[in-house]
């Protein structure tokens, strides 16, 4: 019986699952977690969180999302909505633990990680390692969580210009590291996502 129910949830669209979840159906929300849990955890790791910390924050983010599921109207992707919740939750944690201080520094001459060979195809996670903490957080918030520069600046409590600088430098470094055809090579290395 429950197997049949789970099967039906697996066939539903995210918006339909969110509607079921809003009606208190936790298994529908569980299906959403199964679908997007890795994406949210991956985003937090790319922001610089350690694996266990990323999992903690992601769990809290999903619980918050369940509490606020009625606010999700399906205008955007569910994954994007949860990612924004998770990114903001991670930033709150950084603020609380006073680990966000260095991000405010607009360091132009930060030592750069060694650039890989031009021919070597590296994936995004590998390329992100060459970014400073500030660049990583800003780039991930803007391109991973879908926040605008202004929203990221507000969430980070940083001047807009500082965020734009971090993003610009981060993009330059990523462009240098990601080989042109890396989309395909990255897809080939993925699991069943």
């Amino acid at each position, binding site marked *: 019986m429950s197997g049949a129910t789970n099967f039906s949830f697996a066939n539903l669209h995210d918006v339909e699952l969110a509607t079921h979840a809003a009606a208190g159906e936790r298994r529908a929300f569980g299906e959403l*977690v*199964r679908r997007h849990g890795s994406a949210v955890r*991956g985003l937090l790791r790319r922001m610089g969180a350690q694996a266990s910390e990323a999992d903690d924050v*992601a*769990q809290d983010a999903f619980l918050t999302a369940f509490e606020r599921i009625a606010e999700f109207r399906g205008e955007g992707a569910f994954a994007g909505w949860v990612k924004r919740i998770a990114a903001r939750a991670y930033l709150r944690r950084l603020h609380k633990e006073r680990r966000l201080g260095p991000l405010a520094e607009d360091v132009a001459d930060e030592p750069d990680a060694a650039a890989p060979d031009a021919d070597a195809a590296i994936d995004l996670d590998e390329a992100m390692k060459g970014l400073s903490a500030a660049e990583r957080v800003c780039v991930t918030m803007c391109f991973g969580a879908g926040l605008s520069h202004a929203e990221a600046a507000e969430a980070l409590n940083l001047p807009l210009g500082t965020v734009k600088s971090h993003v610009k430098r981060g993009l330059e470094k990523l462009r240098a590291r990601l080989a042109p055809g890396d989309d395909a090579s990255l*897809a080939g290395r993925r699991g069943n996502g």
Partner: protein
Amino acid sequence: MAEVEFERRLERLFADAPELPDAAAFASRVERRLATGWTARRWLIGAAGVAGGVIGASQLIMSNLFQRVEAAGDSAKALQQGISQLAPHEGWVSGFADGGAVVWVASALAIVAMGFALTRVIEEL
């Protein structure tokens, strides 16, 4: 132009996150936490509902309800006597005579009703 293309490509790379090997275990942990929170909330709501019902019913009882119902019982007796004079064989209002029992039944029903109502209100909140 190339910059825009690169940004789009980057967005695709971010969106296309790899599935982590423990994805199912992670989902189970979240579901467990949801279930735990839900159970705790239901207990809390139930306890609040019962407490609210008891308080509400006690307020009703304390506000001279007993005397009022007793008075209603007396009125019912007077009414019954009047009816019996008019129609001596009709005894259908005899149940009203026992005013004390009515009070306790009404109180019990009030507790249940207020508990139910409060539970619903808290759940809606």
